[in-house]
């Protein structure tokens, strides 16, 4: 019996050196659903993502995968987890020394005994799903940024993952392609029952695809819930975020002056 929550996050704190970037994050990622992590740039979205895919080690007991502590994963267990996931990075992260189709083939070539022919067909199918089947033999540098990102998604899907992580899918894409990607993500959930985690700052797309929205602000969890819940939230900062108001109180004045003149305000 499958755990209904694929990933449980229980009070996750994260640091870069001495800088505290995530504060006590608590939420769960349900299976077969789309979870959207939102927030303005620099709020810790990407850091959270790096914890979820095991690129940044997690402290013990704070991150559970199928009820198992990810902080205690050894290398073999981590690789087993990673064989179940697919990740699309912000930049697409295509290997620029090989063609687009070869990029999509990499995980299959390393992790399966499939023949070259079969792998080539799978790569073409995946590229077709993202609308790039005519670009199989192009080099990544010959593609636009949006196309690179779509090719990256094709590569993330190459192993038919159970869990798909997508970092900023629609940034840098034209609205039509972005909508196409949103629909593909919905289709993946509906047809394959994939668990999908999307990191984005595009509200419209988030409201369209999400089953659950998680809002982060300055490393803290602001709200988590269904899109309806988030939209009807009374919380001042959530409302502000939703209305995309310019963040007036972003920097406190005193710190600003201090940064400018190098001393405290009252000393002036």
């Amino acid at each position, binding site marked *: 019996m499958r755990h209904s929550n694929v990933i449980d996050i229980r009070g996750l704190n994260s640091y870069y050196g001495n800088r505290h970037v995530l504060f006590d994050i608590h939420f769960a990622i349900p299976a077969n659903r789309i979870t959207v992590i939102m927030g303005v740039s620099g709020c810790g979205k990407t850091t959270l993502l790096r914890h979820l895919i095991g690129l940044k080690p997690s402290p013990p007991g704070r991150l559970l995968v199928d009820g198992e502590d990810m902080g205690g994963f050894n290398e073999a267990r981590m690789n087993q987890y990673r064989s179940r996931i697919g990740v699309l*990075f912000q930049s697409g992260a295509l*290997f620029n020394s090989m063609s687009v189709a070869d990029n999509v083939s990499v995980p299959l070539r390393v992790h399966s005994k499939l023949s070259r022919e079969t792998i080539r067909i799978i790569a073409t199918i995946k590229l077709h799903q993202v609308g790039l089947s005519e670009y199989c033999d192009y080099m990544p540098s010959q593609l636009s940024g949006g196309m690179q990102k779509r090719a990256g998604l094709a590569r993330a899907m190459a192993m038919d993952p159970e869990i798909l992580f997508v970092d900023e899918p629609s940034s840098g894409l034209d609205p039509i392609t972005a909508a196409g990607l949103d629909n593909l993500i919905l289709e993946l959930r509906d047809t394959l029952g994939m668990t999908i985690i999307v990191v984005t700052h595009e509200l419209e797309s988030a409201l369209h695809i999400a089953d659950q929205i998680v809002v982060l602000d300055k490393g803290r969890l602001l709200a988590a819930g269904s899109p309806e819940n988030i939209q009807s939230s009374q919380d001042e900062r959530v409302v502000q975020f939703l209305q995309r108001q310019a963040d007036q109180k972003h920097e406190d004045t005193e710190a600003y002056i201090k940064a400018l003149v190098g001393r405290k305000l009252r000393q002036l």
Partner: protein
Amino acid sequence: MLRFVRMLGAAALDGIENLGRLGVYFWFMLRGLIRPPGKFWPVVKQIEFVGTKSFFVIGFTAISTGMVLGLQGHYTLSKFGSESVLGAAVALSLIRELGPVLTGLMVTGRAGSAMCAEIGIMRIDEQIDALECMAIDPYAYLVTPKLIASLIAFPLLTAYCDVVGIFGGYLVGVGLFGLNPGVYMNSVQSSVLWEDVYMGIVKSLCFSVLMIWICTYKGYYTGLDEGNFGPEQVSRATTKAVVLSSIAILLCDYMVTSIMT
């Protein structure tokens, strides 16, 4: 005063940390030998990159070095009336010393820098993260094929450099100074011992390991010192990689020479 002591301590700790990481990196690089993915084609590609594409530059370096050795050697030896050992002078200095060192330095400049930049770009572009997320060992996938290829290519390039260099000396000695070709070749033949050739091979193997180790390490940890990742970090890492590996090669050259003679 206290501040100075603290700075010294911090620098020492930093150095130890770096050394430790360098050691762990070396271990991961070796571990890559027995880990998937398959390495045959990657190694072939790297041999092409390190070996075939260095042919011209090594050949050019070797022939000009050989000719200079011929000129200088002839000038010095003619003072003692022993031009007949010109071949020995050229061959021994090339095989024991200049061949391995010049090959090491030239290949570091040509291929080592490119390797560092390649891996550095993969680092800042999240490609190494992507590899890890596909459960592919980035060391086994990226670094180890380069190591194997260099271990094969370096001794061969060195031998090629030696032979071309000896021919360069021949050109000057025989062509310019009218030495008897038989005398030159006989002097080469009778002076060179297997031990000399062996030393050259050992040196080139050491240099190949050093170059790969340092250049790919610097690329792999691009931006680590500064804590941020950007194109300027790649260029900085590349510069550091070339300088450090060149120094390491020269130091190692001295050590191998002193141990083996």
